[in-house]
């Protein structure tokens, strides 16, 4: 079962975090709510060939290994998410972001079928953190 991707949102200042943090880096608050991050754009893709034929996960079960296609996805709410992607998803594609447990997956297309958390939020990127010298704008 997969569910639409959600990230943590600080209700005080709107800072978005994925994976979740304990204190908000922007305002220090410790209350978080969930915010839908169900879509985004693929910025980079790579393929990892398997390291071992079978591999044991940290919690004990064994997994047969295949090549894994991985992507960095800029979610529409502004948080970068590292996700598994199926064959055919390329750089520049719009994707739907879903989660299976704590695993992020980006699927072709941008429509998220189930929207259990209210209406699709307007895009918002993180407010700038306190400036540090040398910090530059992204590309």
């Amino acid at each position, binding site marked *: 079962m997969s569910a639409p991707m959600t990230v943590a949102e600080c209700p005080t200042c709107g800072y978005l975090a994925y994976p979740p943090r304990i204190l908000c880096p922007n305002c220090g608050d410790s209350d978080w709510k969930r915010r839908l991050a169900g879509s985004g754009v693929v*910025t980079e893709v790579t393929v990892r060939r398997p390291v071992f034929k079978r591999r044991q996960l940290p919690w004990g079960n064994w997994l047969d290994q295949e090549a894994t296609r991985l992507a960095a996805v800029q979610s529409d709410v502004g948080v970068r998410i590292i996700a598994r992607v199926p064959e055919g998803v390329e750089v520049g594609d719009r994707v739907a972001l879903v989660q299976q447990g704590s695993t992020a997956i980006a699927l072709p297309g941008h429509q998220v079928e189930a929207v259990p958390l209210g209406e699709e939020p307007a895009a918002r990127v993180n407010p700038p953190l306190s400036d540090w010298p040398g910090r530059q704008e992204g590309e």
Partner: protein
Amino acid sequence: MSSGSEARIVGAAEATYERHPAVERRTDTFIAEAVVAALADAGVDHGEVDGFGVASFSLAPDHAVDLAWKLGLTVKWLMEDTNGGASGVNMLQHAQRAIEAGDAETIVIAAGDRMEKREFHLMTDRYNKVARDYMAPLPLNGPNALFAFLTERYSRAHGLEREDWACVPIAQRAWATKNPGAVYRSPMTLDDYLDSVPIAPPLTRYDCVPIVSGGDAIVVTSAERAEELGGPSVGVRAIRSIYNPDQQDGDGINTGFAAIRDDLWSAAGVRPEDVGAAFIYDDYPVMVAVQLGDLGLIPGMDIKRYVHKTLLEEGWPMNTSGGQLSAGQAGAAGGLHGIVEATRQLRGEAGERQVEGLELALATGYGMVLYTHGASHNAAVLERHG
């Protein structure tokens, strides 16, 4: 109350890096060999050591004090560092202050790991809670994919092709041919690089460090003791560090090194163009470019010209051991590898690859991927004395 003095590095050594060590050669073995060799290099007696710092991914369930016991060291100053690729510079920063404050006079800083493929992947799957809970299940299979993303991003931002990236490992391999301690020593051609096995495209085998087992150590003592010991020693002009500068919200190619740059050079009282060699934490070629750029070593940020002309054609001394890309990455020892080579070069002990007349050098540390990129950044400006 004892008062301290300036700190000096008076010895440095490496336990020979091995790709497939015999079963009885454990993490402790490699660290101990490096410690013994560094003390011998310094001409310092084992009983004189009163401070010890260590970094290792595979010490558990032991800690620094267990290792001090096993090495027979009674110390007044003890630390264990968990900053991986940034652990060497971090321990040096702390050791320098301990010696200045008079808390200890002669400190051994060591790092090492027995690290083979299986141990490496167990380590990366449990690197931190985010790696264990969010990354291992993807499965991520270690950090290569994340640095493939950073390489793509940097290539796009600076217009680089694979032929440009090739300059970094090829230039470092040219140095490695003169380092008997490097695991890869045969010259690399552009075709070797372009034809190498894909690991996580665009990264191929030669963009990734060979996983090795090994250990590194340095001996740091007071300026007075260094004088008694005689011969050249290495002083610390300045060290600056920054951890978690961007909450992982940044792009990973504009880094905390830019945040510490101005303070580092002003505290050191020199400019980037004054250093005669650089020892850059080279887990991937992209991080070499990022650090050289963010720390101000690339004139006009013309990275393309820098890698082709300065590094490859002119052979400017950057990572003269061959770096981790050719010498190997022995787990946490990777964080000390550059300082060991910098010390050898500044003390004039680098043999066939010795840089003539070297007075000032830069050594950096980088590491600890929290989610998308490294969070630990530090840099040291080191100078020759005597």
